[in-house]
């Protein structure tokens, strides 16, 4: 690692350009304790030396009046060369007149003749070298190499200062995020991903042109902008999307934008960025909305979510998570019969109380923690199957969720088989529910893994059927053992007349695939009658029972089996 101490301990080289031997030698003896010194007796010789030792000279001390090539001409040549113009110049002068001209030509400081105390000369040289090198380091790290926007750290540093000086100006922060960027990279390649990020950055540059504002790439596919308030962010958004479309590919790439209106000086800018990002995240996966303005409830939710994430590991260790079971009934006969159960996790938090799975499951799915929770539920469910088998003599299949994230674990099959073996239960008693959307997002891998799990003896149910985007073609090649559809989904998409027809279609589809059709979320007698009439095989829902703790589940096992 390059540390400040290392940088400042390296011996720098100073080039003295001076025709007067006495002056040259004097500077030489002053400098040689701290620097390596090169000498040139005029501008031409200086240029030759700089060409001979590229990148070596850290500072040039330049006399003005010299034969062959004077200091003014040397400064002119230096100014025309990018590499040379990075080397700072201190002019050696005995004339006040020369100072302004050389300053205009890029000299940073002067050393008057007769010379000041050596200590003063050394201090000036050292300060200029440090200043210039620090500036160069900053220039190298303050910009994001790909997009040319500021890097995150510098953005926050600069915007904090701007925020302190903003006075009465109305300013906002926006967060722009590329929806499913990882997927875009995977599908279209990293080259296209980079092009996309640059297009967004260019669009942001355009928005800032002529007005106040700075922007950074805060994370891989996340941009923050601090800018003068705009009336219409939908318009800003559509201009950014125009940039994306101009890339000329038929893609479904979508940006999301979160806006914080009215940045004040009372909170750090980071806070406003987090708020804008939180607003932006509320429409993840919601294709109907692309721009969201932050409101205060979002921050409370953000804090709440952070709390849940922070508490998760402890909750597993302390068994705050409990598994409830909801029965599935086979309604094909005259009397409904208990067919199986679904394991559903509940979180009873010591301080926050009962937390709805809807509050923590999407959260854990987002950051990957879901895999740990899934693992916990699998083990609990398997142990429960075994317990019922031992105590009641009933081997009831229990289904558990396999999250999309779990499929990234190459060890998935081995882990599941191990759980089954440890509990001494049949492989097909632990049923695996996989959501349809997991299939459509990484089809090949899913088909392969699900195929392997089935070969190992597991049964697979496709969950939330109809909410994803699977094609009929995909359904034909999909290795599954049941189709599961949510009543709620049916109700949401269509009015009741068509809803009936929809369920009918799904049931027919299940017939065609030769697997049972499962409908969940059946709540009342009317729905039950309708579903039964359609010819659905299995029903899960409040009509029979809500999810309950194992001890409350057992009576159903004894009665309805």
């Amino acid at each position, binding site marked *: 690692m390059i540390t400040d101490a290392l940088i400042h301990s390296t011996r720098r080289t100073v080039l003295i350009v001076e*025709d*007067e*031997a*006495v*002056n040259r*030698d*004097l500077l030489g*003896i*002053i400098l040689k*304790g701290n620097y390596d010194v090169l000498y040139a007796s005029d501008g031409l010789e200086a240029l030759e030396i700089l060409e001979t030792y590229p990148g070596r000279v850290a500072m040039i001390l330049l*006399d003005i*009046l010299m034969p062959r090539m004077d200091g003014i001409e040397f400064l002119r040549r230096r100014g025309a060369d990018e590499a040379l113009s990075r080397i700072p110049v201190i002019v*050696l002068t*005995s004339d006040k007149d020369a100072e302004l001209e050389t300053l205009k030509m890029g000299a940073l400081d002067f050393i008057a*003749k*007769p*010379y000041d*105390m*050596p200590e003063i000369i050394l201090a000036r040289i050292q300060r200029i070298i440090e200043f210039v090198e620090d500036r160069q380091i900053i220039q190298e790290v303050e910009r994001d190499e790909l997009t040319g926007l500021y890097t995150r750290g510098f953005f926050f540093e600069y915007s904090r200062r701007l925020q302190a000086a903003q006075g009465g100006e109305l300013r906002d922060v926006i967060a722009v995020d590329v929806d499913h960027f990882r997927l875009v990279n995977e599908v279209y390649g990293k080259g296209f991903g980079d092009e996309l990020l640059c297009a967004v950055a260019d669009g942001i540059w355009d928005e800032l042109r002529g007005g106040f504002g700075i922007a950074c790439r805060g994370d891989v596919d996340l941009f923050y902008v601090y800018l003068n308030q705009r009336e219409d962010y939908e318009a800003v958004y559509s201009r950014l999307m125009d940039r994306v479309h101009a890339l000329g590919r038929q893609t479904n790439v979508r940006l999301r934008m979160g806006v914080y209106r009215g940045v004040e000086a009372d909170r750090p800018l980071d806070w406003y960025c987090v708020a804008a990002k939180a607003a932006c995240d509320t429409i993840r996966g919601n294709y109907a909305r692309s721009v969201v303005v932050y409101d205060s409830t979002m921050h409370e939710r953000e804090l709440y979510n952070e709390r849940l994430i922070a508490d998760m590991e402890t909750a597993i260790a302390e068994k705050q998570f409990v598994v409830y079971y909801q029965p599935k009934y086979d309604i094909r006969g005259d009397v409904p019969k208990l067919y199986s159960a679904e394991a559903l996790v509940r979180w009873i938090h010591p301080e926050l109380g009962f937390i709805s799975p809807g509050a923590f499951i999407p959260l854990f799915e987002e950051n990957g923690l879901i895999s740990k929770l899934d693992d916990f539920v699998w083990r609990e469910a398997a142990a429960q199957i075994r317990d019922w088998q031992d105590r009641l003599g009933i081997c009831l299949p229990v289904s558990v969720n396999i999250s999309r994230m779990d499929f990234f674990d190459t060890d998935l099959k081995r882990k599941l088989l191990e759980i089954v073996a440890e509990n001494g239960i049949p492989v097909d008693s632990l049923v695996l529910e996989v959501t349809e959307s997991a299939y459509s997002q990484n089809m090949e891998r899913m088909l392969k893994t699900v195929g392997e799990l089935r070969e190992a003896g597991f049964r697979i149910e496709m969950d939330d059927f109809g909410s994803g985007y699977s094609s009929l073609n995909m359904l034909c090649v999909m290795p599954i053992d049941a189709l599961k559809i949510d009543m709620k989904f049916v109700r949401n998409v269509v009015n009741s007349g068509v809803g009936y027809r929809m369920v009918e279609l799904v049931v027919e589809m299940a017939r065609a695939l030769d697997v049972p059709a499962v409908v969940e979320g059946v709540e009342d007698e009317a729905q039950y009658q309708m579903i039964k009439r359609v010819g659905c095989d299995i029903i899960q829902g409040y009509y029979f029972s809500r999810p309950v703790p194992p001890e409350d589940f057992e009576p159903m096992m004894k009665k309805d089996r």
Partner: protein
Amino acid sequence: MLTIDSLRAYGANVNEGLTRCMNNESFYLMLVGKSLEDRNFEKLREAMAAGNTTAAFDAAHALKGSTGNLALTPIYEPICQLTELLRGKSEAVNADALVDRIMEQLEKAKQL
């Protein structure tokens, strides 16, 4: 012989000159010796004789820097005056007396 004491007696601001030489006496004396042999003194004399004020200015300017740095005050002072007199001029007026004084002080120093 050129020594710290003789230079001091001559009127040089020895302490100032020595400071610039990091108090290295022999280095200082060496530079003073070199300075007294500076070809610019000869150039100055020739340029003045030829009425070439530009060349005279260049020589005087160069000498101003080195004698100033070595704090050879008896030479440095008239050279400063001469430099200002010649600066931007095509004709030198009243310069001869200054040049004479410079050469006089130069010879005096060489006798040390």
